């Protein structure tokens, strides 16, 4: 799998055309919506509660749509201006900011009831400029996030870690900033459907109920989730083999008979016609 974070900094990878492509792609949109839905589920907000949610790396507002559907108000920020422009065109319902997560956030303490972030954390592990120190950036991000969350609020990060070291680095930073929680891995036995969700709790609930780690999906033997993503439309395959098998052979029986007649007219020695004429030879055993 190619990793976009290896190509260039996020504001360049998701600049211009790529932003429109990313949002226009129904498969990406479906995956994003599914992950955002799962993240909202993991937020574990009370039924019918209309909260104020932060979307870190909101991009074009794909995950925000899910939040709006669930009845939440949201604020999102992203580092790629092109993605935010697409969000504006799509009339995203949340407020948007141009901001770098690694520089920390400027929100008042206790503002949000929760935070979701889809496919973002791995970007913070990069050092795109000489002044970037992944660990310092992660620390700044988590510490400002911690203060901007209400006590007992959850932050759910879906991310694609490259290796165990990255997971350790991210978790270590989060814990040092005061978060509790851990990693929920959905479908750990499936290569394709495996998804990492980092569930962080900003302190315990005020009423003293210990926060429970959510359970992961598909931890048993059944590896693959039921497919409810994009249904593939039947597309005519441009396969030469399929085409050739459908094509009529140009040298059929009529062609052979015609050729034989021509040879006879010339006076050549020609085998007489029979029911076996122009038939394929079966292989001998």
């Amino acid at each position, binding site marked *: 799998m190619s990793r976009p974070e290896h190509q260039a900094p996020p504001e360049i990878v998701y600049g211009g055309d790529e932003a429109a492509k990313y949002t226009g792609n129904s498969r990406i949109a479906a995956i994003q919506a599914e992950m955002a839905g799962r993240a909202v589920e993991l937020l574990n907000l009370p039924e019918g509660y209309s909260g104020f949610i932060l979307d870190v790396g909101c991009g074009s507002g794909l995950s925000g749509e899910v939040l709006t559907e669930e009845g939440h108000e949201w604020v999102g920020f992203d580092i790629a201006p092109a993605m935010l422009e697409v969000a504006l065109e799509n009339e995203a319902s949340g407020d948007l*900011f141009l901001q770098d997560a690694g520089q920390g956030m*400027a929100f*008042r303490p206790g503002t949000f*009831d929760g935070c979701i972030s889809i496919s973002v954390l791995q970007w913070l592990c990069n050092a795109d*400029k000489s002044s970037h120190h992944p660990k310092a950036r992660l620390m700044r991000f988590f510490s400002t996030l911690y203060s901007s969350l209400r006590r007992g609020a959850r932050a759910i990060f879906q991310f694609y870690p490259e290796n165990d070291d990255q997971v350790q680095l991210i978790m270590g930073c989060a814990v040092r900033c005061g978060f509790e929680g851990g990693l929920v891995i959905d479908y750990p036995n499936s290569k394709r459907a495996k998804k990492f969700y980092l569930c962080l709790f900003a302190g315990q609930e005020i009423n003293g109920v210990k926060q429970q780690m959510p359970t992961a999906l598909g931890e048993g033997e059944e590896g693959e989730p039921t497919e409810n993503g994009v249904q593939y439309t039947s597309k005519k395959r441009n396969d030469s083999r399929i085409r050739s098998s459908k094509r009529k052979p140009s040298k059929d029986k009529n062609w052979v008979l015609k050729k034989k007649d021509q040879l006879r007219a010339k006076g050549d020695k020609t085998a007489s016609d029979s029911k076996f004429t122009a038939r394929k030879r079966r292989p001998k055993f």
Partner: protein
Amino acid sequence: MLQCHVKGCDANNFPLELQEVVLEQEEAEFNEDFLKNMLGKLEYEALVATSLKLDIHDLPATMPEDAAYNDEFLQILHRVILETHIKSGKMVCPNCQHIYNIRDGIPNMLLAEHEV
């Protein structure tokens, strides 16, 4: 809701002062539950002060005691915090004078290297 996040700027950094603002009204669905949940989180004085600067005089100077059940008040609050959008302008930190520009309704919160 925003405060200045320049490094070392941690006193008197709220609320950010708005300048050269172009406002826009946009209708939004009235969500009573959300507003009630927000009541506890709002810095009401800062909100009133900011709206006065933007020539919005609808908000009462102090929050009514029965705010959560006062429909009239919730409607006003809804109009101010959810339907009023800032199209463009500047936000200036009252402490360090850092200017955050707002374009197309998107504030640019990026900092220069030395400010992180």
